[in-house]
């Protein structure tokens, strides 16, 4: 295969007031013609910096390429001047950014933006550029391209915008396309569409793609080869099958183990303890040593070289040295490939069914918002129950009303209509402040964004103790502090952290503080509003394991709101699928995943990328036809129980069909 790009010992540093941050510390890889190389890693591992430095888009100062070479078709881009690079950018190498909301200029029509680069690089007339622009829009699947050509970015949805961005990126037939987390900001169904589009374009145009992501499911779906980055270095690189089925580096093990697999049942997720090292003072030896449970003395003294596993597979860990003890792949990882015995789980479920009681009942809940003259039906009549001690998962794409539901339950919004019964008492009818106080103590919430959910001007102790202060749960200062220490240790932090401020913590640690704050008032019911979506995979696993452990220890009930279906499946007992303010399907989590009935659920499930290249290659995505959803005409579909504990939103006719279907079985 022909190499189109070769990177040798690339080092990139940022000069900050605190000193030199070595973001990329000697990265070498190559890219073949027409292949897709995925670069995975946690945030801060240097994957974005690497990709940006390929195009020399690192802001300088503070960033600079310290050393190394970037050979693009044999020419070293490191020594190119800004003028020369401008010719390369867009026409030879182009880039797709993460957030389609900010990567388009809101004051220019998308047509103009596309034409801009065509005219610049290809020297064609305006009419020619326009024709080409429309062609491109058609190619990336924008309907009525001719009409939409003079639309502004805000008139497109997120997925459509990303398509426009892709159209711009491929407008000059670049040889390399760098995609920096292009689907992270999108819903799974849209993500699947974009991935398909990229694969399709690659087939047509023979472009090489460097795909940067933290989602191993996406990697399994799109990549030919994978490079795993950690602390500014590539720790393992190889073909996608090699990385997924024969990983050699303990970090890769951790990443794979931290992803729950849809196809099997829940054990504890593998976590990678700790957090990534500080690149201001990178540790001596292997940067991963501190988090590696197989660490050897040599890991703390010498950096491991790249060991060759096969012709295409290299890994940088001392475990591969001939003198090292042979360590097998952790058992848990192997289990990933087998199907776990199902009996135990079912038994577990059956046991619970007998003794369960309703904790929360939601009846025909409606939450409308008015903005100007518009009426937005965020939640449009939903019903469900949550039983004591269970985890109820609520999934759906962004804007489907799942977060609004959570916030209405905790009375951040006042419900437009409907009832919320908590322990058989309607919580929206509470009059006396004492009752409300009590209720506030029983229902708690964990928020999505660990960066905005903690007051930056309070110490961790004050943040955690806030609930206790409000409810007068602690008598004196000493007792208050003791409780804070207890909670910190419960969520896996140190008591020394109590006197610090939130900005001194990483995302995962902040989320733990948020959990500790919710726990401080001894709640019974916790609403977790996308508590892990802003975190890295390995950190997600830490938080999910913590939530599970707390549930077991304290007998908590969770409402788990998320868009990441694999995590929801992992943690939930029952799952409700929301679409446009309504619940379209509700069932036990295994039942829902094995037997989805509603077309929307089907499409949602088929769109989740799985961290398993074999299945990804053969899987067919089911498209959801929006016309199938009720549009105020004909019979209104309602949630009906088609099978014990399995509810689907359907019409009378469909209901009978489902019934017949199950009777046949």
């Amino acid at each position, binding site marked *: 295969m022909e190499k189109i790009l070769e990177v040798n010992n690339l080092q990139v540093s940022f000069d900050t007031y605190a000193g030199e941050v070595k973001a990329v510390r000697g990265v070498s890889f190559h890219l073949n013609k027409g292949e897709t190389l995925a670069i995975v890693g946690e945030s801060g591992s240097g994957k974005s910096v690497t990709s940006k430095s390929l195009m020399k888009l690192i802001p300088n100062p503070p960033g600079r390429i310290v050393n190394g070479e970037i050979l693009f078709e044999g020419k070293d881009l490191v020594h190119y001047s800004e003028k020369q690079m401008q010719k390369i950018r867009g026409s030879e190498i182009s880039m797709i950014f993460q957030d389609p909301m900010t990567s388009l200029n809101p004051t220019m029509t998308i047509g103009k933006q596309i034409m801009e680069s065509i005219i610049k690089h290809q020297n064609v007339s305006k009419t020619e550029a326009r024709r080409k622009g429309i062609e491109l829009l058609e190619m990336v699947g924008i309907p009525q391209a001719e009409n939409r050509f003079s639309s502004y970015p805000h008139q497109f949805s997120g997925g459509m915008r990303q398509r426009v961005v892709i159209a711009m990126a491929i407008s000059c037939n670049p040889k390399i396309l760098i995609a920096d987390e292009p689907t992270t900001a999108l819903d799974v169904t849209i993500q699947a569409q974009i991935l398909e589009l990229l694969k399709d374009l690659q087939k047509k145009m023979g472009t090489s793609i460097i795909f940067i992501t933290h989602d191993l499911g996406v990697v399994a779906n799109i990549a030919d080869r994978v490079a795993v980055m950690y602390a500014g270095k590539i720790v393992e690189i190889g073909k996608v099958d090699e990385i997924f089925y024969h990983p050699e580096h303990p970090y890769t093990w951790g990443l794979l183990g931290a992803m729950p697999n849809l196809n099997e049942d829940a054990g504890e997720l593998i976590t990678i303890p700790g957090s990534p090292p500080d690149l201001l003072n990178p540790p001596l030896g292997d940067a991963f040593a501190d988090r590696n*449970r197989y660490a050897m003395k040599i890991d703390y003294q010498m950096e491991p*070289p790249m060991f060759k596993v096969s012709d295409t597979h290299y890994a940088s860990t001392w475990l591969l040295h001939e*003198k*090292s003890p042979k360590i097998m792949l952790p058992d848990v990882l192997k289990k990933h490939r087998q199907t776990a015995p199902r009996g135990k789980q079912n038994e577990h479920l059956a046991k619970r069914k007998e003794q369960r009681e309703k904790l929360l009942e939601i009846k025909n809940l409606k939450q409308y918002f008015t903005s100007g003259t518009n009426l937005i039906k965020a939640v449009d009549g939903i019903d469900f129950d949550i039983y004591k001690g269970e985890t109820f998962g609520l999934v759906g794409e962004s804007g489907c009303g799942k977060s609004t539901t959570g916030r209405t339950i905790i009375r951040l919004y006042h419900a437009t209509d409907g009832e919320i019964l908590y322990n058989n008492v309607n919580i929206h009818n509470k009059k006396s402040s004492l009752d*409300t*106080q009590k209720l506030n103590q029983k229902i708690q919430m964990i*928020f999505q964004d660990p960066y905005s959910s903690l*007051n*930056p*001007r309070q110490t961790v102790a004050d943040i955690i103790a806030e609930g206790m202060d409000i409810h007068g749960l602690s008598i004196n200062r000493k007792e208050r502090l003791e409780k804070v220490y207890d909670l910190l240790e419960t969520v896996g932090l140190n008591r020394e952290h109590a006197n610090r401020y939130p900005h001194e913590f990483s995302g995962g640690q902040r989320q733990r503080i948020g959990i500790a704050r919710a726990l401080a008032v001894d709640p019974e019911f916790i609403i977790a509003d996308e508590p892990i979506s802003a975190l890295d995979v390995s950190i997600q696993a830490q938080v999910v394991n913590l939530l599970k452990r707390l549930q077991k220890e304290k007998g908590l009930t969770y409402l788990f709101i998320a868009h990441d279906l694999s995590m929801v499946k992992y943690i939930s007992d029952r799952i409700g699928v929301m679409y446009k303010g309504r619940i379209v399907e509700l069932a036990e989590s295994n039942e829902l995943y094995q037997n989805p009935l509603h077309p929307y659920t089907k499409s949602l499930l088929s769109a989740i990328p799985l961290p398993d290249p074999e299945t990804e290659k053969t899987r067919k995505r089911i498209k959801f036809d929006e016309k199938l959803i009720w549009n105020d005409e004909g019979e209104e579909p309602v949630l009906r129980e088609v099978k014990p504990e399995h509810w689907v939103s359907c019409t009378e006719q469909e209901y009978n069909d489902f019934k017949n279907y199950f009777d046949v079985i």
Partner: protein
Amino acid sequence: MMIPNNKEITDDLFQPAESEKSREVILRPNITYWQEVWKRFRKNKAAFVGLILIAIILALAIFGPYVNQHGYDEQDLTRANLPPKIPVLEHVSWLGLNGMDIQGVDRYEENGISENFWFGTDNLGRDLWTRVWEGTRISLYIAFLAAIIDLIIGVAYGGISAYYGGKVDNIMQRIVEILVGIPSLIVIILLILVLQPGIISITLAMVITGWVGMARIVRGQILKLKEQEYVLASRTLGAKDRRLIWKHLIPNSMGPIIITTMFTIPTAIFTEAFLSFIGLGLQPPIASLGTLINDGYKLLRIYPHMLAFSSIIISMVMISFNLIGDGLRDALDPKMRK
């Protein structure tokens, strides 16, 4: 396989490492928030210099007039228009503190005055040292009063408007817009016509229009902050309005509030000077930095000392407040903690 040769690879290197409990050791001493603020503030050299300057000026404004026996309104035409003369410093010729006027004539010798007037005298023979510090005192007094009242009204108004939102916000903002629409000069002139010109009426006049800026800034901040998840989190914990406002919203608006206040002070000093300048401000013989500058500029070409001292002090006051404001904003922000 490339293996670095700089070190021998021995078998024992492949023993499992003792799991070093990498529990973070916190070396930071347990100090309170305000101690920390003070520490951070001191580190900011410019702000610290500003603080010292303000302290000196304040001390002089309070005690300066008592250094000699002259009153601020004590006239004596025999000693009119004397240039400054300070013992010891008079020997440094380029400072111009040797009692010589523009023509190089020693006015003290000519008029037969043995006493030294450190800042000279004005055209009515009043001692400028006394007048300058008396004026600084009054200017600072007006400025502080205006700034504090602005702060209180502005924060309360903006806070209420943003926090309760909806109709309340709508009505309150329309009122603000009307106030902004009327030129403040007209409001002030009308007010001073009704009341007698004096310290209180000037302060009142400035406050009536001055708080609008603060109210708008606070409103913007709180509108932004009240949707933050930590505020929601506090509400889900059952926090009452008062807690939300005082523990979450106000502390996080502190940066802009401090900066705005620190800008209000020099602005107030200037407004007062301006009002005095157009004759609506303090009436003679009361001195303020504004009236002194007003008096001094007329004779600038002949007696530059009359303008020099008051302008230097007004500049120093303004620069110092800006520096302090900057330092204070950073010092109060725990995110600056290293």
